């Protein structure tokens, strides 16, 4: 099936099998490997991307369902060589270790801050509950989101 999508601002068109998952489409067809696959049951969140402004788990969406959509992946967050404040927060606060969950975690944080620019610590911990991290114990991730929140609201 033919689909048209805008990925990180670039309009593209592809022919895909209906069964192809969006995450495989992004990684293997579009060639953006920053989005990761960490599970098969929509629980780990490593595959999170923005789809028409909503954070979604791209392992649980068919590529054909994204026909006509605008998608932002981790690769599309930095603008003009400047890190996004959330990316900066993760770096400043040591919000990652192995880095595998990080792209999805940053996308989840991005959604959270769009909807709630000044979240409490509890808001942040709830806001990233769809993303598993096995390395950090989450505290530095919380710090990273707080850092970004502060930077984005002042």
């Amino acid at each position, binding site marked *: 099936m033919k689909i048209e999508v805008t990925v990180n601002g670039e309009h593209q068109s592809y022919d895909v099998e209906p069964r192809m998952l969006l995450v495989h489409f992004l990684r293997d067809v579009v060639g953006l490997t920053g989005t*990761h696959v960490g599970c098969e049951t929509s629980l780990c969140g490593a595959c999170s991307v923005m789809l028409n402004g909503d954070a979604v788990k791209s392992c649980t969406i068919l590529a054909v369902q994204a026909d006509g959509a605008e998608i932002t992946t981790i690769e599309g967050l930095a603008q003009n060589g400047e890190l996004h404040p959330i990316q900066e927060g993760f770096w400043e606060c040591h919000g990652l*270790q*192995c*880095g*595998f969950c990080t792209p999805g975690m940053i996308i989840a944080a991005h959604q959270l801050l769009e909807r709630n620019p000044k979240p409490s610590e509890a808001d942040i911990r709830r806001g990233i509950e769809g993303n598993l991290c096995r390395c950090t114990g989450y505290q530095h991730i919380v710090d990273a989101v707080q850092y970004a929140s502060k930077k984005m609201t002042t």
Partner: protein
Amino acid sequence: MPISKSVGARIKRREDPRMIQGLAHYVDDIQLPNLLHVAILRSPYAHARINGINTDAAQNLSGVKSVVTGDDVKDVIGGIPCAATDPEGFPGIKVPHHPVLATGKVRFVGEPIVAVAATDAYIAQDALDLIEVDYEPLDAINSADAAFADGAPIIHEDWDDNMAFTWSIAGGDVDAAFAEADQVVSQRIDHQRLVPNPMETRGVVAQYLPGKDQLNLWSSTQIPHLLRTQISVMLGMAENHVRVIAPEVGGGFGCKLNVYAEEALLGHMAKYLVQPVKWIEGRRENFLHTIHGRDQTGDVELAVKNDGTILGLKYTVSADVGAYYQLLTPAIPTLTGLMLCGSYTFKNVQMNLTAAFTNKMATDAYRGAGRPEATYLIERMIDVVAHDLDLDPLEVRRKNFIGKDAFPYETGTAVAYDSGDYTAALDKALKMADYEALREQQAKLREEGRYLGIGFSTYVEICGMGPSAAMPAGGWESSTVRVDPTGKVTVLTGVSPHGQGQETTFAQLIADGLGVDIDDIRIIHGDTDTVQYGIGTFGSRATAVGGTAMVHAMGKVKDKVINIAAHLLESNPQDIVVEDNKYCVQGAPESGLTLGEIAMVAHVGVQLPEGTEPGLAESHFFEPPNFTYPFGTHIAVVEVDADTGEVEIQRYIAVDDCGNIINPLIVEGQVHGGIAQGVGQALYEEAIYDESGQMITGSFMDYALPKAHNFPRFELANTVTPSPVNPMGVKGVGEAGTIGSTPAIANAVIDALKPFGVRHIDLPLRPEKLWKLMQET
């Protein structure tokens, strides 16, 4: 170690820019021309005879390139290795052949049977559905007890029972200790089976270059060099024709400290198809066929005096090690034995372990590897002793602590603790917690029918693995430090970090040591064609052992740089100092030369002092004289909901002593993550196989990894007791959090339920379990 420019500073990681932008390359991100995708058919049965396999339909599926069965490879791929099978260490050990693909029989759910290579990953999966295997199901064994029961089915028919091996350790005079005791305090203690679950599952890409007879193998591994050695043996290739590359590795926690069937299988397929192949493990496969941790159950007896003095310990334990051995399976429980005395002075100790084959995945090293078992056991038993003798758990700890003047201290299990001050860590943690106030609060809440619990863990662990004599596969580490003509520094290290941040901490050490900007340093690891042999990253050893090798190599480079500088500055080496990243004669900084200027001279080769070799690169292989022994006190404060049994962690205080600290930010991160994993064991995680050997917690739907909202903000601090084992005085901190936290949480929950007469509860502390205990009284 003095805090200089870099070392000791909270420097943000140099690894991060690529990772936060999606530019890091993990094994699944590797693309090669004509890449085939491999899917693996795995046994749905825990125990069954294979009477036939029909792959015709799969072979005929369009897009399928190759279908490989056990019969196809049994003569060309050697068995999966185990490095710890010395019968002197493990009396009676049985070492079963461990094939990469099963033939004749399957022995656990998830055991690989057939591999399919196809042009597309989806087609490879389709092909699996077309393979017919004629299974004859056999009765399955799902626990050590079942393995030893009369009439139990035999898993490995070369032998007539399921006993895998035995191991024991003894120190002092246990019989005398028990004879002298006022009381014997006993408890059966279970260490449930856990699944490591790094967020990146395993994966392999293999490529064969026939012109060079070279196999390139990318694997998500913690041990590229050991893997290369083993793969070359398994495939019958010359080791120097095999190149193993660990790309970015998305977490390991011990489960990637191994050699797996898929690594050899993919290597073989790439070679025989002369086409690159990729296999990426699914999460369900990871649950079934990547090593598990723990799974020991045993009876502990403590000989005690009425005042709480511990005289001796006996531990009779069985380990359920699964159907086969992986790389270090038998070695893991031995670490439990070595650390059974914990932070305490008793020296009379005896552990007898019997390991059973069962129809499960093998156990092996999972974060802490043997030490969480020891620490949980002794720290839990301290509280049981306090319970039985009606003493304060702190009093029992203090009474039995090894004093700070006793180091180096040889334990009853004959390991030599390098340095320590256990009281200092405890006192600091108590102060942070405001312990007296907590106890008052607890008493007040109990009157309101609310159950607050305060739990301690005053752990000591063994890391910095380790002297080669005590390790199954070498315990040394290596490094090469070279300075390019323009003054850029490249470090090759034999350790292979995967999240621990050594690209930053090692660069900090170099920056200070050589007087060079941190951005001019590159740390290269994980490529066996580039890096001289090393052992790998595990056992909290990367900095203590690998870092020491690097510091020594750097020292050799620095000596040479100073010699050249002295020659150029017409001075004596002993008068050369480094100031503002310049090598100068003391008191004459204006004359100073940069590392780059000196490196250029070394490479041009004409102004060198007589007898000096040109070039500027040095290597060092470091053999650690001892392990290191980090320690600390963790305090957990929990509340158990009287209506539901749910546990809320209200506070978590951790005072860790990992010796000197190179980067506090990274140390904090390691401790945070470690605590989270230990809490996972205490409250949530458990790999359950049902009676027929099916794993019923085989996905994130049923196996709970801790989530962000499960934790409060951790309150961390350190004491610093440098290790004498290495020149940096570092100990290691990769596993301390995991080792320390499980008993702290368990003790806190059990303390909360004290009004209900609860003395011990096995992990994980699920709400229903706690609710039931509260109902019973």
